[in-house]
């Protein structure tokens, strides 16, 4: 357990935590962990709380190991991580809203998910009565001559999720963007507490609709890790097949939608048609266009008929025939390139500091892909490249998606070629003990982390961390100095999740 070794010599390891270690640290160990984030030796994977404890998930990129450090027996407060390591800021504000634990030394004391509209406070901690009147939310100031503010949302002009953007602009140029999120907070972690794994898996699969496969995948893996359960080989491969189909559909949709925001609907029409073909193939193969509820703890809920393998191969051939012409069109249209290149640049240092995953990180020099860095079967037996670029602009984020479409096509072909026969689902039963499990799965948007504690056949606590937590703040940085009209383009190229973030 190299990831924890220098953090907490006095700590004790929790024996029932799988597959990576969890150590209960003292304040010294907690501070050491915070310092290792601040000086870049480790990456923050997640930070969440319970009634009287906080947990921090860490990644050591060099060793390819992960681990969890916990502080337990807290009396209402703990030493703030964000005070030394800013990427933890929103996580700590959310943690305080949900549990009531006060991050000591946190500079930003505003609430994050709690808009003062719930009928209680601290739903995951010592519950308290709601305040009689919600405080007005103060946006950060931006001062200077001839600055003006543009408030946008939560209800947006297009078919998108709700969130509020507060722009401060000087003429057309954006001086500051501040996001305010939490509008679609549904209390998923609250609903998870006490749920049986079947219901909890349903909830996990509805955390972010475009990543329903990836969430169900991560949840199932976390349950199986906690219980030490193996699943049938065929299920292992079918899961990856669904995950790649989901990635393919989303990347195709995104490439078209980004170009559409640069007034080039031709790409949207063509990419949209390809996306629809993928969804229809998924529907025929697994009985649902988005493959919702098809991955369950213990295996998968739908088998792939032999006849459907040929359908999927036809789909691959169709995309391989049509996609290269679209890539050429993208690359050779001057008006499109004019909008994409050098727009919304995210510098590699920030991507690394925040541990940004997915195309956001990989377009800014961070080569992290959970399928490669924290490999899980069957990806350890598959050949694929992890494309990385350093430019960090909208164009780079499009190109990462283009390359990943090609990789997913190849992965699907490999998977179909070696699908093992056999059963697809094992029975899942808790043995009455308390067990903890954790999983990191690469969704189309980036790495999804799910941590849970099972007590018998119930979920006691489950935390789901969307990749957007480490991407949303970077959008604020990337947009600075761009014109207001380029915001939709930048935003779409990040395509962060609102629901996955708000939970």
């Amino acid at each position, binding site marked *: 357990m190299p990831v924890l070794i220098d953090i907490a010599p006095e700590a004790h390891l929790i024996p029932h935590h799988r597959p990576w270690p969890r150590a209960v640290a003292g304040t010294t160990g907690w501070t050491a962990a915070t310092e290792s984030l601040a000086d870049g030796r480790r990456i923050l994977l997640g930070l969440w709380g319970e009634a009287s404890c906080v947990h921090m998930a860490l990644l050591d990129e060099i060793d390819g190991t992960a681990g969890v450090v916990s502080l337990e027996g807290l009396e209402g407060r703990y030493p703030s991580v964000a005070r030394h390591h800013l990427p933890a800021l929103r996580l700590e504000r959310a943690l305080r809203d949900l549990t009531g634990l006060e991050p000591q030394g946190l500079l930003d004391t505003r609430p994050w998910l709690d808009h003062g509209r719930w009928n209680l406070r601290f739903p995951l901690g010592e519950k308290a009565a709601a305040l009689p009147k919600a405080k007005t939310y103060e946006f950060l100031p931006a001062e200077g001559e001839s600055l003006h503010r543009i408030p946008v949302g939560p*209800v947006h*002009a297009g078919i998108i999720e709700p969130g509020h953007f507060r722009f401060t602009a000087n003429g057309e140029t954006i001086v500051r963007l501040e996001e305010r999120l939490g509008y*679609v907070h549904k209390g998923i972690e609250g609903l998870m507490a006490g749920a049986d794994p079947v219901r909890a898996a349903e909830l996990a699969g509805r955390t*972010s609709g475009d990543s329903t496969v990836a969430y169900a995948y991560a949840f199932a893996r976390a349950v199986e890790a906690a219980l030490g359960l193996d699943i049938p080989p065929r299920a292992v491969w079918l899961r990856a097949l669904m995950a790649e189909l989901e990635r393919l559909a989303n990347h195709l949709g995104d490439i078209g939608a980004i170009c559409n925001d640069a007034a080039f609907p031709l790409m949207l029409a063509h990419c*949209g048609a390809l996306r629809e073909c993928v969804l229809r193939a998924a529907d025929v193969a697994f009985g649902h266009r988005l493959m*919702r509820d098809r991955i369950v703890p213990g295996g998968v809920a739908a088998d792939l008929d032999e006849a459907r393998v040929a359908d999927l191969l036809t789909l691959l051939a169709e995309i391989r025939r049509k996609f290269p012409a679209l890539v050429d069109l993208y690359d050779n249209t001057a008006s499109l390139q004019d909008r994409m290149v050098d727009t919304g640049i995210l510098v590699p240092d920030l991507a690394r500091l925040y541990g940004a995953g997915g195309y956001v990180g990989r377009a800014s020099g961070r080569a992290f892909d959970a399928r490669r860095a924290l490999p899980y079967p069957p990806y350890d037996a598959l050949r694929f490249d992890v494309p990385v670029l350093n430019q960090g602009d909208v164009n780079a984020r499009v190109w990462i998606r283009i390359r990943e479409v090609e990789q997913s096509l190849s992965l699907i072909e490999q998977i179909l070629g070696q699908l093992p026969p056999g059963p697809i689902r094992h029975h899942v039963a808790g043995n009455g003990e308390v067990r903890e499990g954790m999983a990191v799965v690469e969704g189309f948007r980036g790495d999804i982390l799910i941590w849970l504690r099972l007590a018998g056949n119930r979920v006691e606590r489950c935390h789901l961390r969307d990749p957007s937590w480490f991407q949303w703040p970077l959008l604020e940085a990337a947009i600075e100095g761009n014109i207001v009209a380029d915001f939709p383009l930048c935003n779409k190229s990040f395509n962060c999740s609102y629901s996955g973030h708000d939970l």
Partner: protein
Amino acid sequence: MRRLLFESLIRRPLTEAAPRRSDAAMQELAAAIDRTARRWLGRSLSIRAVDAGSCNGCELEMHALSNVFYDIERFGIRFVASPRHADVLMVTGPVTRNMAEALERTYNATPGPKWVVALGSCARDGGCFAGSYAVVGGVSRVVPVDLHIPGCPPPPADILKGLLALLEQADKGARTS
């Protein structure tokens, strides 16, 4: 680009035949529309989408309505950017407490006559999120609902059927009133 454009001249269109209107949806609608329908709509319908707490699944299928396979605009149905331009609010999600006021204000900003379509299982009664401290419940807890389209999420064809039923009823209501 020229090659792509040329190919589109000789290839068969991808757009599919219109689906049959949904009978169940028709019945649910008849009552609501008989009261209010006028000839004002003609055969066009402007929809304003409001995500009041959804997981984004329903939004994906709403987007799909605009792809070439469904091509919703050929029926005179289009998505608009402002509630002030809308005849129909299409609301998704269990309504979260943090979105309830925004939904109500969007409804109030929509001129009459107007209809509210609740899209997806969550929009009916909160779905699997019902009972959460952060969720009000189905859309009808906040604004009056004229039509539910079930599904998690409803496939585009189902959404289209529901909307065509809405249009036909609006037409019929107009002739008889």
